[in-house]
């Protein structure tokens, strides 16, 4: 069992006029190897939550355990934790700073104090994992396209060999092609390397396509925590908090309202088409 959160609370700017209870009584377990989607409208606390998982933010109260160890415990190596739980921020390409792609990806492993050969080997592997062509390794990161830059930035985290990978809206601002490329790459990492993935996204369609479990955040609390099928079953409640279900879920409900005796739990295009085909046979 990788991450366990107990009674976590986080208060911003405590004691001032701007005080805000950003997280309230969060209890979560994130076992190894899951592919989890985190959804919630802007300001629901999802970004604050994920920054607790690698110790960037310190809870006001409550505990976070990584592999059974309390990360707030005395002498706990938080820098080490940040390499185990890799966090890719929104628009991660904005953090690139080195003169070439390869050196930039080396930054993470170098900070871990690894020997030079190991650093380079890891950077090499990470760039391969994100599918960047070798001819770009020595070019300036600023000459790449938006999608390529983002992959370099993700490689910068992967080079630290994380066991858990958290991505905060990794497809924001990308076109459909760039979006599919990145998400397919993440899925491959999950399947081939067994990395635990937490994907924060606003796109219910993407979430439905990739994840096996959804955590819904609302007003700093966990509203739902279940399989996509179960969570999207509550599409009316999701709408009330500014979220929605994938478009096909509405299609299935539309059919049911039109008098079809059909299951409404499809969340992807394939599932919907399948269900309709079977119904019409």
């Amino acid at each position, binding site marked *: 069992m990788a991450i366990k959160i107990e009674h976590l609370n986080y208060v911003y700017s405590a004691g001032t006029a701007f005080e805000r209870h950003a997280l309230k009584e969060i209890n979560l377990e994130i076992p190894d190897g899951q592919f989890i989607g985190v959804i919630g409208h802007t300001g629901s606390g999802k970004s604050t939550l994920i920054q607790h998982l690698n110790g960037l933010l310190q809870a006001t109260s409550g505990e976070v355990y990584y592999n059974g160890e309390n990360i707030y415990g005395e002498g706990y190596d938080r820098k080490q934790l940040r390499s185990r739980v890799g966090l890719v921020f929104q628009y991660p390409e904005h953090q690139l700073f080195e003169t070439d792609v390869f050196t930039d990806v080396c930054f993470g492993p170098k900070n871990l104090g690894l020997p030079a050969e190991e650093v380079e080997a890891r950077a090499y592997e990470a760039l391969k994992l994100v599918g960047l062509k070798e001819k770009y390794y020595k070019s300036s990161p600023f000459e790449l396209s938006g999608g390529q830059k983002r992959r370099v930035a993700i490689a910068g985290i992967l080079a630290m060999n994380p066991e858990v990978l958290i991505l905060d809206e990794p497809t924001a601002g990308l076109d459909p092609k760039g979006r599919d490329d990145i998400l397919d790459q993440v899925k491959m990492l999950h399947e081939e390397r067994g990395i635990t993935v937490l994907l924060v996204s606003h796109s219910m369609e993407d979430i439905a396509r990739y994840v096996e479990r959804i955590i819904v955040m609302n007003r700093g609390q966990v509203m739902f925590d279940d399989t996509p099928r179960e969570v999207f079953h509550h599409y009316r409640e999701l709408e009330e908090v500014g979220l929605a279900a994938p478009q*096909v879920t509405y*299609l299935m409900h539309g059919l049911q309202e039109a008098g079809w005796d059909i299951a409404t739990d499809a969340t992807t295009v394939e599932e919907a*088409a399948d269900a309709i085909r079977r119904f019409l046979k």
Partner: protein
Amino acid sequence: MGIIKARKLAHDYFKLDDEGRVESVSRAVDHVDLDVQEGEFVAILGHNGSGKSTLAKHINAILLPSEGTLLVDGNDTKDESKLWDIRQSAGMVFQNPDNQIIGTIVDEDVGFGPENMGVPTEEIWQRVEKSLKAVGMWEYRSHSPNKLSGGQKQRVAIAGVVAMRPKCIILDEPTAMLDPNGRKEVIRTVHGLNKSEHVTVLLITHYMEEVIDADKVIVMDQGKIVMQGTPREVFSRVEELKSYRLDVPQATLVAHELQKAGIDLPDGILSNEELVAALEEYRKGQRNGN
């Protein structure tokens, strides 16, 4: 009368080396012919690097054509004496909401354009009020833009353009950095302006759900216009859209999958409602057939 008229418009980007010599040339827009009528809502789709933003920047004369001509409301964008007329008749909204708001207070930002045009003070106030009301941001007039959500910031940016009384608004991926609710807000606002003020709209985007209500959809790829027509016409060519790595509404995709499985449905289904109706129709036919 056409408000935007492009003939064989082309634009080259030059990459210079350290000494300022031309290292390479890349053609971003490649012999594009474009006609937009007054009052139309035209959407331009295309993935990043397809040339759609470069094309947009020509209409406001931020970029000038390398080849061909572009007329905006009858003025050639190459004619420098008409520059300010062109910028007034074709307003532009950009992608990043933070980087286009100049004022530190919402109403001051909306007044920025009219100030530049030399509009008398009293009229600026009338225009600011009208524009902010048109985008539904009047209650926020004395707020700092930094405290607004992304969708609200974009609506302020749109109001800033509307206050210049343009005939045409070009929106260059105005929703790319917004969350779904912000996206809906902005698109609803733009449709509202198009309907109530009869402003011509040119919406550039890669979100397909934003274009289904447009009058006309143009698809760009590698600097060229590759598809053009009503949303229904364009979205009935699912395989072709996929080949340009563009999205298709999920209802259209489901219909396409069903068609492939031999279920006879009409082409160009755009929404869940249409698909439900079509499936009902099909089922009726099935029953009658039996």
